[in-house]
């Protein structure tokens, strides 16, 4: 492997030299436009051809990919992307200079590759971090070449041009940080505080979001607008529930009550199984995975776990229902009541009987009280008898 200090060729020149069909590249650009319908300068164009021209002029961005406490699922989502396929991605579009799972080198050779890649592209490369970083006990729970992951990240990030945390683990800890968090796992932005970190949460996230951010940086040197959780707004502005293909079933009140029941087979709403869609911001419901329609959790009948939200996935139990923040009308209607205020004959009869009974009871009760004259005579009688008994008692 030789490392040149020459600037990388543009994407267009490289694709031409390698004989990649223009049609494939245009298809890739179309996918990118779908993934970033707004908020990304390179895709805010009228046609895929314009996007292709824009990306074609970019120098192939150098990407260094670090793995920490992860399952490699985020890499897998890139591998399973069919347009462009993996070979295209690595060799033609981006320059993936270091990736532990995909590189041929190992051991000392791999370490040398990392240091060389960092040195050659210092200040320019895009650092992609996958997996959370253990911080407990000085980070001894994960080591690369004898050094804690914590230190490796700090060293490489110091040289990086842009830092992207891919997946929920790198964004804020993910599965390794779930209670009781034995390794003290945290996300990248807990450790790298002097540089902006772009979070691409998801388990896994959509790979086109990553490519969009990388190309934006390579072409314009800028980063997309971020929300309060440092997620790119162009990819995380939508609420799953608002764009869900099963939304009609929610509005009609047709819910799956149990896995495999009739509603589940008919593709009804998964809310009552604990679907976190109403509280989750992500583009999954409109940008499915692997460019295959309906390949995403809800599409295959599994409730959303809210993996793009810090407070949901791996924090809230799977079957717990989330509150509906912005309730909308169902597709049922209240009936017109035209009979309000009418008085029916049986009703009048019942009320009259009850009223009469109460009145009669009151009258009978009243008769039982002693009359005023009776009371007065009793008092007088008592008075006289008491004076007779105690004739010497002083009058009070």
């Amino acid at each position, binding site marked *: 492997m030789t490392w040149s200090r020459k600037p990388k060729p543009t994407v267009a020149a490289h694709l031409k030299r390698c004989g990649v069909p223009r049609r494939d590249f245009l298809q890739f650009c179309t996918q990118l436009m779908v993934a970033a319908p707004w908020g990304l300068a390179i895709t805010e164009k009228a046609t895929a051809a314009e996007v292709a021209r824009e990306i074609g002029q970019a120098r192939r961005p150098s990407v260094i990919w670090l793995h920490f406490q992860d399952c490699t699922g985020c890499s897998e989502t890139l591998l399973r992307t069919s347009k462009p396929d993996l070979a295209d991605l690595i060799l033609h579009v981006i320059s993936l200079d270091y990736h532990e799972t995909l590189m041929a080198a190992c051991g000392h050779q791999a370490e040398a590759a990392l240091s060389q890649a960092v040195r050659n592209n210092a200040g320019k490369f895009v650092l992609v971090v996958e997996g959370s970083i253990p911080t407990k006990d000085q980070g001894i729970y994960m080591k690369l070449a004898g050094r804690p992951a914590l230190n490796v990240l700090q060293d490489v990030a110091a040289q990086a041009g842009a830092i992207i945390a891919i997946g929920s683990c790198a964004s804020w800890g993910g599965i390794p940080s779930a209670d009781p968090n034995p390794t003290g796992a945290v996300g990248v932005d807990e450790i790298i505080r002097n540089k902006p970190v772009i979070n691409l949460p998801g388990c896994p996230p959509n790979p086109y979001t990553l490519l969009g951010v990388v190309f934006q940086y390579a072409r314009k040197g800028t980063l997309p607008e971020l929300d309060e959780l440092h997620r790119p707004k162009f990819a995380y502005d939508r609420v799953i529930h608002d764009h869900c293909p099963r939304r009609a079933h929610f509005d009609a009140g047709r819910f799956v009550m149990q896995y495999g029941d009739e509603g589940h087979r008919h593709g009804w709403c998964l809310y009552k199984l604990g679907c976190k869609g109403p509280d989750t911001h992500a583009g999954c419901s409109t940008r499915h995975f692997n460019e295959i329609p309906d390949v995403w959790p809800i599409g295959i009948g599994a409730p959303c776990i809210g993996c793009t939200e810090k407070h949901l996935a791996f924090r809230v139990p799977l079957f717990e229902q989330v509150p*509906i923040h912005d*309730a*909308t009308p169902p597709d049922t209607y209240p*009936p*017109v009541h035209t009979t309000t205020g009418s008085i029916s004959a049986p009703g009048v009869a019942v009320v009259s009987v009850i009223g009469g009974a109460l009145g009669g009871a009151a009258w009978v009760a009243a008769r039982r009280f002693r009359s005023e004259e009776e009371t007065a005579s009793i008092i007088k009688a008592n008075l006289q008898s008491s004076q007779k008994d105690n004739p010497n008692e002083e009058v*009070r």
Partner: protein
Amino acid sequence: MELTRREALLGVVSRCVPVAAALAVPAAEAAEETPSQPKAPVGMLYDATLCIGCKACVVACAEANDLPRDVSLDGLHQAPEDLNAFTKNIIKLYKPTDNSPDSFVKQQCMHCLDPACVAACPFKALWKNDANGLVAWEPSRCIGCRYCEIACPYHVPKFEWDRINPKIVKCELCRPRLAKGYEPACTSVCPTHAVIFGPREDLLHKAKERIEQSPNKYFENRVYGEHEAGGTQVLYLSHVPFEDIGLPSLGTEPIPARLKWQKRIYKFLALPLLMYAVLASVMKKNWIDHRKEMLEEERRTGLRPQL
């Protein structure tokens, strides 16, 4: 049988209040015998044949009026059963059991030309705008007596049952939006223009044009609200009988005109206050009589009475 000065004063006051109130009511009433007609009444025209029941107006109304979503039905949907403290506008469905045509109906304040609620309101918390004729509501004057709720023939004003200091909730045809130059939220979002906003005269004209163009389409070929109870500023066209979609037959006479003396005796809560005053004076009288009796008894027997 002596009256203390305190007792004498109380007796005088308790008897004078009802008399004063009874005298004050007709005086206050005389000033507002006939409400002046608004200069340029605006309103809405709802055409039930165009409504598709999308409920965009229901959501827009709740948003524009900052109303909390009424999710009391299932905790998931904004699904009010009727107009209520959280719902100023609602779409209902009339679905007959036989095969006769069904219809949606939008319900909100009708903004009557001579409103019963305004006549019933004891403290003028409800009032009719002189310029555009809309029935507005002033929260600082509302005491939550619910007179308007009972007076309204369309069951529009609703009571805030879940509040400690409850008041009334009612459509004001988006008064703040109109003041800013926007049209009401419900008309602005209607995708089929089933409900439109404009001057009442124009809307009436438009409605009659529609009836002329399709003579067999509309029920009785007439506009509901043109003459009903003196006329309303919200007009309805429908292909099903108006009574079926909750619009009652009210005749042409305004409701306040029918309630000549009733509306007076409730102004400034006169009748209830009068009743309480009479009760209080009776109680006072009984109390004084009883006390006199006790003093008499004490003087006669030389002992303090036991009762």
